[in-house]
């Protein structure tokens, strides 16, 4: 950290030196230029002693400011920061109004901890230039940089007393207030800074990031209103991301009028949101960018992000948008795999095949072959085992591939399916549900399980329910889950009486099984829908009291709240 700080400091001095070459003092005899170049070379190569001698010579030849700044850097390389002070004493006496020299003197004195002398130097500068804000601002800045918040506060207070305001030191005031933990005041000060200098939004963001939870609202009311400068709104949106509420940040930016600046802000915000992997919010941001400034590249990017957010239908629309205008073959080659993946997830296998056939010329034989696995997966989702097998013949599959796992599952080879599905691909909700069942039994074959999931894929709910019932009979260790799966199917197709019968069975016979919590919740919801509030209340309460660690408890509490509201109507 210290090394990093000293690097930053060196960089600042170097830039300062370069800029000051253009100042009246620096624009002096040319002969110094060659010496300065020699000094900088030595400094860059780490030959500090040689650099020190050369910088001294440059000062003597008239290159006062760059010489002093170089000297300061060179001495800091050898950890002798105070050695620059004698030279500065002489030069300050010669050029008492030169801010760069005064600044260097204050920096050196504060850095080596000679506080009294630093105060004296500050007083001397003020005495020379009593109406100027520079001494106050620069000294406060040096103190802030060195973490001397209280001293900086005193200096700024003195500025107000002597000059009447701190208008020219808004930045320092904002930094100081944040440094002192006066967050509400800091938020106000930063807002004024950003009103004057919009590009300070990143500095404001870093400065205000540690705001305690209890005081964040005071930042929000100052930066998040329409009258706040745009930079403040942008900084607040980024703060919301850092504070774990990216949606709140997006809500702030989404309402900005669409123009180039806004789109640039959205882009920057998208990067922040991507860093925290908030895919749902990110999808909204990139879609907004696409709507504001449509392009095939942006549409494709939005489609990729939407797939990560699980927004398949949206992703499909976007990926097709990416191919709408005349686009390059390369763009098509990028878009088609995404389109196929989304279609496969949606179980639209025939459509996926058509898309692949249409794009096969662009993709080439190898590219087309690589997509065969996706086509196979699409047929698996559609429950067409034969076509899935035909598609998979051409596909390059790994040993533990999800395609093999699903096919094994449909064949009833649940041992093979368990291994393949556990190891392959990122998990999707259906695969997790299947694995939850398979990992609760050690059986290696079960035609009933295969039949149940195949029927589900084909949309044959009656057969699926029957098969799950058979699973419950054949494999008692997964009975509660199999019955619950049957109930889920029945509930989804509107057979609430059948579902209720199974929920009741689970609650009665498998009261301590994890499925009992879901059964109680759904059973209670059914009672609430049919107006039996007492039964609903009893079931929600039973869930909370008998399964207090269940992830469904918050939902049960929410249902109870809903019941209470209904009762007051």
């Amino acid at each position, binding site marked *: 950290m210290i090394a990093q700080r000293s690097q930053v400091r060196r960089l600042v001095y170097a830039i300062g030196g370069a800029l000051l070459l253009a100042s009246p003092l620096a624009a002096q005899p040319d002969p110094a230029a060659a010496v300065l170049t020699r000094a900088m070379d030595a400094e860059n190569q780490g030959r500090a002693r040689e650099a020190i001698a050369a910088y001294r010579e440059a000062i003597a030849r008239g290159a006062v400011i760059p010489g002093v700044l170089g000297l300061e850097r060179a001495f800091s390389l050898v950890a002798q920061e105070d050695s620059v002070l004698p030279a500065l004493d002489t030069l300050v006496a010669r050029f008492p109004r030169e801010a760069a020299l005064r600044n260097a003197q204050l920096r050196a004195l504060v850095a080596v901890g000679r506080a009294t002398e630093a105060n004296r130097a500050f007083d001397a500068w003020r005495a020379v230039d009593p109406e100027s804000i520079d001494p106050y601002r620069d000294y406060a800045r040096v103190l802030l940089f060195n973490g001397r918040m209280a001293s900086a506060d005193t200096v700024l207070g003195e500025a107000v007393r002597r000059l009447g305001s701190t208008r020219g030191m808004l930045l320092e005031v904002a930094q100081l207030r944040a440094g002192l933990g006066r967050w*509400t005041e800091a938020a106000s000060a930063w807002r004024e800074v950003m009103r004057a200098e919009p590009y300070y939004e990143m500095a404001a963001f870093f400065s205000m990031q540690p705001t305690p939870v209890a005081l964040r*609202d005071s930042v929000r009311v100052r930066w998040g209103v329409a009258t706040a400068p745009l930079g403040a709104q942008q900084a607040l949106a980024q703060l919301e991301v850092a504070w774990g509420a990216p949606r709140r940040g997006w809500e702030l930016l989404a309402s900005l009028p669409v123009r180039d600046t806004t789109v640039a802000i959205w882009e920057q915000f998208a990067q922040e949101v991507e860093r925290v992997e908030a895919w749902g919010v990110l999808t909204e941001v990139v879609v907004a960018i696409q709507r504001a400034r449509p392009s095939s590249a942006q549409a494709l990017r939005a489609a990729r992000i939407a797939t990560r957010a699980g927004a398949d239908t949206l992703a499909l629309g976007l990926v097709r948008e990416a191919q709408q205008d005349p686009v390059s073959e390369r763009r098509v080659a990028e878009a088609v795999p995404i389109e196929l993946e989304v279609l496969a997830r949606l179980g639209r296998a025939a459509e996926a095949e058509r898309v692949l056939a249409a794009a096969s010329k662009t993709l080439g034989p190898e590219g087309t072959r690589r997509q065969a696995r996706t086509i196979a997966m699409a047929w698996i989702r559609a429950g067409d085992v034969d076509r899935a097998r035909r598609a998979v013949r051409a596909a390059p599959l790994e040993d533990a591939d999800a395609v093999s796992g699903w096919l094994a599952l449909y064949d009833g080879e649940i041992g093979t399916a368990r291994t393949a599905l556990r190891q392959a691909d990122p998990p999707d909700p259906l695969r997790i549900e299947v694995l939850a069942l398979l990992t609760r039994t050690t059986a290696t074959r079960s035609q009933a399980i295969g039949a149940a999931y195949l029927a589900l894929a084909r949309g044959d709910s009656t057969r699926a329910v029957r098969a799950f019932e058979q699973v419950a009979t054949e494999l008692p260790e997964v009975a509660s889950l199999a019955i619950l799966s049957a109930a889920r199917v029945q509930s989804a197709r509107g057979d609430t009486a059948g579902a209720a019968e199974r929920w009741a069975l689970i609650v009665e016979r498998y009261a301590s099984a994890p499925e009992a919590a879901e059964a109680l919740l759904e059973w209670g919801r059914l009672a609430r829908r049919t107006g039996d509030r007492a039964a609903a209340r009893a079931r929600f309460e039973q869930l*909370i009291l008998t399964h207090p660690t269940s992830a469904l408890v918050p939902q049960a509490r929410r249902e109870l*709240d809903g019941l209470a*509201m209904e009762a007051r109507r």
Partner: protein
Amino acid sequence: MTGRRLVMQVVRFVLAVSSSVAALGGVVSPLAAQHLLLPMDAVQANHLKAYGVTFSALREGVRSEWLLNYRGGAFLLPDLPSLRRAALLAGVTVEAMDAAAVRALRGEMAEGNMDAVPLEKAPRIAVYTPPDAPPWDDAVTLALTYAGIPYDAIWDDAVLDTDLSTYDWIHLHHEDFTGQQHKLASVYRDAPWFVRSRERDLAMARRFGHADIPALKKAVADRLAAFVSRGGFLFAMCGSTETLELALAGRDVDIAGVAADGSPVDPGADGKMEWTRAMAFAGATLEMAPGVNAMSDIDGHQVNVPLRRQPLGTFALFGFSAKFDPVASMLVQNHRTVLRDYFGVTTSFTRNRLKPGVTILAEEAGAPWVKYVHGSFGRGSWTYLGGHDPEDPQHAVGAPPTDLALHPNSPGYRLILNNVLFPAAKQKPLKT
């Protein structure tokens, strides 16, 4: 290290262990203890329902304690199965404490600006609200329903006809006691809800022999002031605060515009107001223009007057001495000290319109208005909180209801619930 300090450290350790065990699973320890502590600091999972659990203890006749300034205003209840069950159902964080831990807690409280206030009986609560109003129309009914605190809904006929002394606590929300329906006629004259409410109020006025709605509402205001004067506790929010005061002070003056009673406001009304009848304010100037959507200069924000509307800021709760000023302390117990402001028909109270002796509980620093005030009137007391809904800063007519399940730790709603429990502690002899 002194012996006393050592004991304190041991006890704190015991407390910490018991707390961490108890907080497991989000709620209560399976171990039986002698007391249950409901912490009200950042640890609490559901601050609002903690009030409901405490209230349910009081309804059971169980004596509880409110630990002012201790962990955000925690509650200490006896460890009873019914209360554990209530806490678990509500998702309220509870820490089991044995006798030693409670002794240590009391020791710690004795050394600081803290005090334990006994809560002895569940206050009987009435909310003044129209018969057809849904619970989410009013922040208080919303908070009470969410916390599981029962209340009676009363309306003009009940106020005029029944013995209000059966209640300890009456709440008012956004009623306009000047009878002008917040001057919304100019915008909503033909809106079905507006027409319905005017017809309902007119029918009520006729039933009680009043010529118009302003006369009816003034009579209601008088009854409410009498309730306070006889020892009741009144909590009011939003527009009911300002208009109740105007109705009381303007009882014998025509302060309602043409749209309300068919005659213009008495041009000399300001000079005829009798502020000694009012509870909180004095010397306010009425807004006489019928087209200007404000009642007086009591409200600092004037949200519905475009050229006067003030932006929302934040307001800070004052800290009070728990031992010497327990009433004010109870009303400001919170886990936050700075709260985001929110609009209402009356959002805030102009500082220079407050009567001397009114206690300011919360203010916006540097602003000419305050947010939350309290005072005595006769043998009773009142509290006014500006704004409509603490979690809906811009609340507009027709806005969707606030879902408190999304705000279980709302510091603004806590202020409302502090007022609900305050009457439960009323019987303790106060030190000031």
